[in-house]
C-alpha cells in the first residue's frame, strides 16, 4: 500500500505544481499550452546546474529565473504582440522541448540523458518508507493552500478573476489587465520551474530529453477538469496520478495477459472519461467556457 501512495505522490507532485501554474493563467484569461515547455526547461536547468555547480539552491534559482524569463517572453508575445494564445503556447512548448534537447546535445554530445550526482533534499529516515520523497512533496499542500488563498481570498485574486472573466469591468475600476496577466504568468513560471525540478531531481536525479512526456498537457487538462479552481484542479491532477500508478500496478499484476499498450494508455483513457464526466455534471461546454463555475462556498 505504501508503495502505491509513494508512487502517486512521486508522479502527482510535479503535475500539481504545474497544474497550479495553469490555474492562475486560466483565471487571468490565458489558455496556457506552454506549461509543457516551461516544465522541461525547469527540469533541464535543475539537473545541468546541479552537475555544474553542485548546489541545489543555485540550480533551483537558475531554473526559476529561466522559467520566469520565458514566461515574460510568452506574455510579451501574447499580450503586446497580440499573438494567438494557443499557437504561442504550443510554440513555447516547442521551444522548451527543442531547446533543452539542443542544450544537452551541445554540452554532452549525442547523449540523451544526464545524471546529476545528487538531487533535491529528501525527507529522510524520519518519515519511514516515505523518506525517499523530496521536501517539495511535503511543501506541495502549502502551495495549493497558498494559491487558493491568493485567488479566492484576496483583492488581487478578484482582480485577476475579473481580468479573465470580464476585462472591461477590470479596466473600469482601474486594473491594469496587462500587468495582472504578466504577474499571473510569472507566478506560473516559478511553479513550472519547481514542478520540473521535482520531476527530474525529486526522486530521480536525471534529465533525459523529452522526459516531461506530455505532463504539461495533462496539467492543462487538470485545469479544465477542475474548472479553473485551485483545489478542484489539484484533485484532478491527483486523480491522473492515481490512475497512472494503478496502471503500473496492473502491469505487474496482469503481466502479459493484458496488452502492455492498453495499460500504458490507461491514464489517458481516464482523462478523456474524466473530462466527459465533469462536462456532463456541470452542463456541457459551459464547464470549459465558464471556468469560474466551481466555487467553494
Amino acid at each position, binding site marked *: 500500500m505504501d508503495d502505491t501512495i509513494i508512487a502517486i505522490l512521486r508522479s502527482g507532485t510535479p503535475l500539481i505544481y504545474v497544474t497550479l501554474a495553469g490555474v492562475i493563467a486560466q483565471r487571468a484569461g490565458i489558455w496556457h499550452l506552454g506549461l509543457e515547455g516551461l516544465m522541461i526547461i525547469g527540469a533541464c536547468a535543475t539537473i545541468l546546474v546541479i552537475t555544474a555547480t553542485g548546489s541545489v539552491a543555485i540550480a533551483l534559482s537558475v531554473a526559476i529565473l529561466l522559467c520566469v524569463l520565458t514566461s515574460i517572453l510568452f506574455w510579451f508575445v501574447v499580450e503586446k504582440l497580440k499573438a494567438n494564445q494557443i499557437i504561442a503556447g504550443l510554440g513555447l512548448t516547442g521551444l522548451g522541448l527543442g531547446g533543452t534537447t539542443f542544450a544537452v546535445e551541445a554540452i554532452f554530445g549525442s547523449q540523451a540523458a544526464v545524471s546529476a550526482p545528487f538531487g533535491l533534499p529528501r525527507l529522510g529516515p524520519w518519515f519511514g518508507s516515505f523518506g525517499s520523497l523530496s521536501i517539495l512533496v511535503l511543501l506541495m499542500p502549502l502551495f495549493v493552500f497558498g494559491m487558493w488563498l491568493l485567488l479566492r*481570498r*484576496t483583492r488581487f485574486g*478578484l482582480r485577476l*478573476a*475579473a481580468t479573465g472573466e470580464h476585462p472591461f469591468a477590470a479596466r*473600469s475600476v482601474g486594473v491594469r489587465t496587462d500587468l495582472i496577466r504578466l504577474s499571473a504568468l510569472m507566478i506560473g513560471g516559478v511553479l513550472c520551474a519547481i514542478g520540473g525540478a521535482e520531476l527530474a531531481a525529486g526522486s530521480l536525479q536525471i534529465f533525459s530529453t523529452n522526459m516531461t512526456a506530455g505532463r504539461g498537457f495533462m496539467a492543462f487538462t487538470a485545469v479544465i477538469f477542475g474548472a479553473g479552481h485551485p483545489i478542484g484542479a489539484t484533485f484532478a491532477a491527483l486523480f491522473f496520478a492515481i490512475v497512472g500508478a494503478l496502471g503500473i500496478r496492473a502491469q505487474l499484476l496482469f503481466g502479459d495477459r493484458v496488452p502492455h499498450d492498453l495499460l500504458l494508455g490507461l491514464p489517458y483513457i481516464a482523462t478523456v472519461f474524466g473530462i466527459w464526466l465533469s462536462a456532463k455534471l456541470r452542463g456541457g461546454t459551459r464547464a470549459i467556457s465558464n471556468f469560474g463555475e466551481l466555487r467553494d462556498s
Partner: protein
Amino acid sequence: MKDDAHTVLECHDVGVTYGDVVALSDVSVSFIRGRIHAVVGQNGAGKTTFARVIAGLVKPASGRVEIEGRAVPTGNVNEARRAGVELVHQSFALPPSFTVAEAMQFGATDGGVYSRKQLETRWQKHLDALDIKVSAGQRIRDLPVETQQSVEIARALVTEARLLILDEPTAVLSPEGAQKLFERVRHLKDIGVTVILILHKIREVLSVADTVTVLRGGRLVEGPIESDGIDAAKLAELIIGPATRALDEDDRAALTGAAIPVHHTQATATDAQSPVLKMNAVSTRSDPEGPPLNAIDLTIHQGEIVGVAGVEGNGQRTLVRAISALADVSSGDIQIDGKDVTTAPMKMRRLSGLRVIPFERNVEGLSLSSALWQNWSIRSLLQKSLVSAIQPTQLRRDCATALDSWDVHYDNVAQHAGSLSGGNAQKVILSREMDEGARLILAAQPTRGLDIGATAFVWDSLRRAKSRGCGILFISSDLDEIMDVCDRIVVMLSGHVAGTFEPPYDLTEIGAAMTGVGQ
C-alpha cells in the same frame, strides 16, 4: 472663469478620434457641484465617449479635464477615481460569476486577505446604507437587471465618489424602475454627490435633471442650460438639429422621448386572412442563453406590426430563437403562413417567408470580414440546395442593384461589411431580409445604436413592408418606439406573455405589466 469652489468638473477643448472617426471635438463645458446634470444627444453624438473621457477610460487626443479645480491626468482610471469620479456603464461591468460582495471588494482600494463572512458582513452594511435590497452573497448573474444596476451604483460608491456618471441608466429599466432610479439619484444629490446622467429621453431629462447639456455629432451644441428654462420642443430641436428628412410629429416625439407617442394609424389586418405567425402554447427547453419560453400564444396577421415590450432578458431573445429554429421547442406548435414549422429547419422556415433582422447586427446579422455581396447573397444561397452552382458575377450585380435601391452608402460590393457605419450596415441587412418573398419579419432591436436619420429609415421600411402585407414582430427595449410603430403590443415577463395591449396605449398599464405589478 467660474468660481472654482463651485465647479466640480471642467473640460477644456476635449477631442477624441477613433481611427478616422471624430467622436468628440473641442468640447468645453463645466458643471456645478451638488446638482443633477443631464447630458443628452442622439446615438453617435459622443455621450458615452464623453463619459469615458471623464472616467479615464478613454484618453482624449487633445484637451484637459479638471476636477474640483485640479487638472487630472487623462486616460488613467485610477487618477480619475482618486479624484472622486465613478462611472456606471450602460451595459454593466460586473463579472457575472462574482458575488455581490466580491464585486464590491474588487472595486475597493483596501483590504488584504479576507474571509467570506467578513466580506459579506462588510458590504451588506454598505448595501443597506444605500437602501439596496440584495444579499451580499448572491451572484451577479442571478440578479435581475434593475438590481444589477443598483449593485453597480453601490460598487461605484465604495470609494468617496464625488462625481457619479451614469451612462444611459434608464435604457435597461421599466418606466417604474426608472422612477426608482431617479429617486436614488435625488438622494445621492442630497448627500452631496454630483451626478451626471447620460440620457436620451427628453421627458426623463426634464423630470430629474437640474441642468441639461446637448451634444450633437461630437460637438457641444449648448449647455449646461437650466432645465427650468427650456421646454421639450426647444430641446428636441437642439438634439435633432437640422434634420435630414422631414419627420412626422409622432415620430419626432418618439425619437426624442419628448412626449408619450399616440399610435394613430390603423392596422390593415383583417382576421379573415390566415395569420403569418401563429404560436400555440409554445414552451422551450431551458438553455444557458436565456429564460425559456413558457406557454407563449402569439398571432401575427398580414399587414400587422406586433411589438414585444419588456425589460431586456425576459425571453425576447428566446422568442426569436424559437421562431428561427435555434431553441428547442418542448411543447406547443409554431405555424408560419399556415404551415406547421415546429420541427422544421431554418431553411424550410425561410422558404415559408420567415426573415430575421437579428439582435446583434455585427455578430449575427453580418460577417464583418466578408464582402458586402457575400453578406447580401447568403439569403438566396441558403434557400438553394447545397450543391447548386453559384454565379458570383451575377450575385455581385444583383447585390449592387439592391443596395442602391436601399440607399446604402458604399464604395463597391467587394468591401468588407465591417467598414460600414451602423446605419449603413443595418440597411444591408434590411435589403437582404425585406425582399419580395418575405411574409413574416422578425425585427429584433432594429434601431439600436442608430442615429435619428437611420432610425426613421428603419421605421419607414417596416411600415412599407407592412403595407405590402408582411407580418412583423418588432422587439425593442424602447417603449416610445414600440408605441409609435406597433399596431399591438405584447409584454414579455420571465418567458411568458404578461399582457396584450391595443391602441390607444396606456404607458402606466404597459409599465406595470413589464414589472409584473398587479398579477
